[in-house]
């Protein structure tokens, strides 16, 4: 019997673990090793340089830029997406008429949910290519075209979107435009998530609140929102990962994958730039290891601050 168990366990684990080791773990370990060398990526020549690559991180102007851009996305993407998603979920679930059964969701809320979820099933590439056309810097683009038609933008002075490195509130305009896409594509999904969480809150809590004379705003802010805390903090962690990974948009949409003039560089694009364009592979690996450490610390930190006693109902 014992023997059978051992054979069964090995048999079931061999293939998945083998694949995972070869295609995921081994490349990661190699990358960590390369980060201590000056390997260019193509030649066979590589020399051990110790921590030199890591020290160079701290003086690299591009890294500093990328770091702040990542921080910008880390703050704004979750904040804007969650705020909008909560607001939409609030309108959907509380915006309806009142009757004997209490406050209802708006009429047609099912349809709205289906529509808002659309961007979630589209691939990032489709979204990026589509928004490239929407953001065209001439009258052929959707936004410029509409704004020109109603006279808000002059024909000879269109919004340049992805080509605009000018800072707005201290952050290059191109990043704000990318943020808009991220929020557009994420809000619907989190709205559905919040909406489901709202509906799982038992009705009698609301009934009690209404008996006590609370209106819909009070109920929302004093009851719904606090009970959604868990869901919101999970959403925050997930959106944090998404914010660290805006690379698809940057790669496809911005000029020279991080431009113009490095105005939209993020960690991933700096890694890509160093590894594949400058041929400094060892250094690129060092950046990537630093990013990995940063990500893990951030995830641990987020989990720690958002963890709180669970409210059971």
């Amino acid at each position, binding site marked *: 019997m014992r023997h059978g168990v051992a054979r*069964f366990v090995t048999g079931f684990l061999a293939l998945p673990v083998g*694949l995972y080791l070869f295609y995921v773990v081994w490349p990661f370990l190699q990358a960590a090793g390369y980060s201590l060398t000056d390997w260019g990526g193509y030649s066979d020549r590589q020399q051990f340089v110790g921590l030199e690559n890591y020290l160079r991180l701290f003086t690299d102007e591009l890294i500093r830029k990328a770091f702040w851009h990542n921080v910008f996305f880390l703050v704004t993407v979750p904040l804007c997406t969650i705020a909008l998603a909560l607001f939409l979920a609030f309108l959907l679930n509380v915006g309806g008429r009142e009757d004997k059964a209490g406050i209802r969701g708006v009429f047609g809320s099912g349809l709205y949910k289906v529509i808002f979820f659309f961007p979630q099933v589209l691939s990032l590439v489709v979204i990026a290519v589509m928004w490239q056309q929407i953001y065209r810097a001439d009258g052929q683009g959707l936004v410029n075209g509409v704004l020109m038609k109603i006279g808000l933008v002059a024909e000879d002075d269109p919004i340049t979107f992805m080509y605009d490195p000018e800072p707005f509130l201290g952050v290059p305009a191109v990043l704000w435009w990318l943020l808009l896409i991220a929020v557009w594509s994420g809000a619907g999904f989190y709205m559905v998530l919040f909406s489901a969480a709202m509906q799982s809150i038992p009705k009698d809590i609301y009934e009690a609140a209404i008996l006590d004379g609370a209106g819909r705003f009070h109920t929302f802010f004093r009851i719904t929102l606090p009970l959604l805390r868990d869901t919101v903090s999970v959403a925050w962690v997930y959106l944090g990962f998404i914010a660290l990974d805006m690379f698809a948009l940057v790669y496809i949409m911005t000029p020279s994958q991080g431009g113009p003039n490095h105005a939209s560089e993020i960690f991933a694009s700096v890694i890509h730039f160093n590894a594949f364009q400058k041929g400094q592979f060892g250094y690129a690996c060092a950046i990537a290891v630093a990013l*990995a450490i940063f990500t893990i610390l951030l995830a641990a930190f987020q989990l720690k601050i958002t963890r709180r006693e669970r409210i059971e109902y």
Partner: protein
Amino acid sequence: MSTVTHTPGGQAGPGQAPPPGRTPGRRAAVGGRAGAKFFNGFSHLFLAVWAIMVVYPLLWVVMSALKTDAEVIRKPLSLFPERLQWDNFVRAWTEGHIGSFFLNTVLVLTGSVFLTMLLGSMAAYVLARYDFPGNRLIYYMFLSGLTLPIYLAAVPLFKGVYNMGVTLPFLGPNKHLMLILVYVAWSLAFTVFFMHSFFRTLPTAIAEAGMVDGASHSRLFFSVMLPMAKPGLISIGIFNVLGQWNQWYLPTLLMQSVAGEPKNQVISQGLIELSVNQGYQSDWSGLFAGVTMAMLPVLIVYIVFQRQVQSGLTAGVGK
């Protein structure tokens, strides 16, 4: 009562006075009812505006795909093409190679999703249900893959695949089977994590009964546990289908042409290339047709199975 704060321009005026209480005899205060009406209208307005912001760009892409190039340039905004140009789709399908992108994607996904589900739930089941030395180690090894950025592994991964291709050509770069295995490996982390927590919640009594009846361990897994885990499998299946359909970085890295043979591109990768090339050729309607063909199938599948897709994906986050 201060019900004002939230909505802009909201219920200032008479509407806000008393809270819409459940007064006996259904005599809700008149003001409250007017406020509710207003709020209801505002909700609809805002929701409708957002719905338009979501749908309009998609509709615009589809409609532009049915215009001539001249029309795309002359009347970029109109949603009604003068004459429907179905040949844009034909052009994108053949000259833009969307047809072969589709074929490649379907070939790869059929294998990779099936294998991900099979291997992922096998590993998760063993890790969740059997105690053996190294169990935790393997579990955390899978878990750590969730946080590490893929770019870190890019070049070593390419090198590994390239070297593999020297000895085993069918596992080299630009091969379907290689991409299938890479997709499986990279999807295992989340699949194992998700199914692990799912298998933990399944009751042990049934498994024990099966054992008493003399079922072998693998028999127990395939005919008892796997069917019981069906809801979890559906969730993670939807998650994997969408995730692997959306993959663009791994194929861009690994499906590169070696020795001059044409690339076996998948849809996302091909679309990126199309958007660059069509820009040079100014074949805008062809590009729109390509984007349309890449997004319509997923959207249609979603609309048909919307409930499963929504709950499947949100369950993935809820864990």
